[in-house]
């Protein structure tokens, strides 16, 4: 078990800068998830930790030792790939034992370790099969098994579940969560699935274009996004943004207005917001509640209703023509074209500076 420190880490492919100075502290036993849009450099960053990509600049420490120039095998890491990367011509047993075999471990010890890993992953009955005879989820289990037997300081996962179907993904997600608890190991996990990030992580790192946008516990990121990008990236459906006029700053609050909005006061959290200027008001769809009649703080008409049973998602066109989404926690029909008033608690709204 070990902590991992990334200090000013940079990576360039030729003239292209992909990672542009990343600082992350990962504590011993922590489950850290890297999220971000496609191409933001999540995999690259993980592969730099693994030693599969050279580090262009900065330092990488694992367990207090700078490992920039160490071979992958000397870093004490194990990696699980999206494409499983299990050896097609070997049985499951041989695959799981691969690292032990090439390091010349005695057979008895090897068998014991493989049996232990198989028990943890509940795949004892698969040990003598070949990868071609396994389902996707079972293959990924084999890959995880291969990682477990190495007893690594740090587990690295690169989108391990994205080749699986939705139901299986949920099962495996829970298994990985359990695995983390039982092994108590440091894990770094790359995904672009928010649910995986929110449910698994002790700490989420949101990346964009090779830069860290915010680091924090899942709920901290959800309730206190540091910027527009994080606010829009986490949560589904994503946060509504309304460009508003700032009328006045009153202490910690900013009074804002919009043609479709009754003036309200929202905490500005010291962001670069000035009276007379513009700002972006963010409200999560779940925090919007319908009100009868012309009351409420936001006014618009219903453009579309999606009934999901437990929830009704309503697309609302505001008076000025901009669109927002409300996720209402009950099954109700809103006739298309009808006027609708929405209410929310200003304390649950966010105010961001315009980009």
């Amino acid at each position: 078990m070990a902590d991992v420190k990334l200090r000013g880490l940079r990576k360039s492919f030729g003239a292209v800068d992909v990672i542009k100075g990343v600082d992350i502290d990962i504590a011993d036993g922590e489950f850290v998830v890297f999220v971000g849009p496609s191409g933001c450099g999540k995999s690259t960053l993980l592969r730099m930790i693994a030693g599969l990509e050279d580090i262009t600049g900065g330092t990488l420490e694992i367990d207090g030792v700078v490992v920039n120039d160490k071979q992958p095998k000397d870093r004490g890491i194990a990696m699980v790939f999206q494409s499983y990367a299990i050896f097609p011509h070997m049985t499951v047993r041989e695959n799981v034992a691969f690292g032990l075999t090439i390091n010349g471990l005695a057979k008895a010890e090897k068998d014991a370790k493989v049996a232990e890993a198989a028990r943890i992953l509940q795949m004892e009955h698969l040990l003598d099969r070949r990868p071609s005879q396994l389902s996707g989820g079972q293959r990924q289990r084999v890959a995880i098994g291969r990682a477990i037997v190495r007893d690594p300081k740090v587990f690295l996962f690169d989108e391990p579940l994205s080749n699986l179907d939705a139901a299986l993904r949920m099962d495996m997600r829970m298994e990985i969560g359990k695995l983390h608890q039982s092994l108590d190991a440091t894990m770094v996990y790359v995904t672009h699935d928010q649910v995986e990030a929110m449910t698994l992580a002790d700490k989420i790192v949101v990346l964009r274009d090779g830069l860290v946008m915010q680091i924090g516990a899942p709920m901290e990121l959800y309730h206190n996004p540091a910027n527009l990008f994080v606010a829009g990236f986490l949560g589904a459906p994503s946060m509504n943004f309304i460009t508003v006029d700032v009328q006045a700053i009153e202490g910690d609050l900013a009074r804002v207005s919009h043609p479709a909005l009754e003036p309200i006061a929202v905490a500005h959290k010291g962001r670069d917001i000035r009276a007379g200027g513009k700002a972006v008001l963010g409200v999560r769809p779940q925090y919007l509640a319908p009100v009868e009649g012309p009351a409420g703080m936001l006014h618009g008409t219903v453009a579309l209703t999606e009934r999901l049973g437990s929830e009704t998602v309503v697309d609302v066109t505001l008076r000025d023509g901009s669109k927002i989404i409300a996720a209402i926690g009950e099954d109700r029909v809103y006739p298309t074209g009808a006027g609708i008033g929405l209410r929310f608690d200003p304390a649950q709204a966010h105010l961001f500076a315009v980009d």
Partner: protein
Amino acid sequence: MATKLTQSNGAGWAFALPGFGLMVVFIILPFFFAFALSFTNQRLISPNPTAYVGAANYRQLLGVGTITLDPLRDDAGAVQRAADGSPAYPRLREFTRANPDYPQLDGMREWFSFGRGESRTFVLARDVVFMKAIVNTVIFVLVVAPLQGALALGLALLINQRLRGINLFRAIYFMPVVVSIVVVSLLWRFIYSADGGLLNNMLTGLSFGLFTPVDWLGTPSTALGSIIAMSIWQAVGFHMVIWLSGLQTISPTLYEAASIEGATKWQTFRYVTWPGLRNTAVLVLIVITMQAFALFAQIDVMTKGGPLDSTQTIVFQAVDRGYGKQDISGGSAISVILFCIVLTISLIQRYLTRERT
């Protein structure tokens, strides 16, 4: 709808016809012709009508026999010896020329012999040259197939890297393949030449004159080896490309997984590369074997089967018989024999390299 189907099929057949026709005329028909002719006494040009002769051609080609002889003794019972001290044996001709006691040996000649105690066993063949051709061809295949395959794999591994200018090397290694084998053979005749040949000059230079030049193609002990070396060089680039395509089908993540597990270069090859090349290996091996069995052009250009039949090969014999000696039926029989050998070998290879589950 049925009409439409048949119509479009008709068009398809019409398009296929030229190619298909050529294949029938130049590959399929000759194959059956060879088969049929090998059981006749057909000659290239002959006033006599063709007659069915059964397996006579095959008996003539493949007939072998042995005879064990005791040395000649003088009246006192002592072994008679030749001038060099080796024991003297009765003349073989006494047994192979119209000897009523040995009808099965009639017309055979000595192929080789080995001694056990004082007696000596002579292996006789009805067609000694053809026997030598078979042996030479088999040696050629046994040496070329593993060496060329391994060498090609080595080159493929070397050039399967992202390095500046690697394409230049790929091109260089592939170049001999593009040049006609006849041209290559002619060039290598100069390289192997006894006086002033490149190889002799180089060896003399490297050994500071200690090396005595060899007539590579004119000496029975070096001629086949020289042709083997040159043949390996010529086609190695082709098989390198096949290996290369096999290498590129192996997923790079497997290599990454292996490197994280700490596999050495050799272990990576043993556990990732080689298993991933299994199908390619079968293909390369079969193709090399087939090509090696068909060895002809090099022989025809460089040695014509000589010296002392040391570079006779099956295909060279087939052509030499059929056209040189105008014995079409004999040549056909050789082709059929070659076909059977190659078929057997590829079946065995397929069996040995089958997918085990």
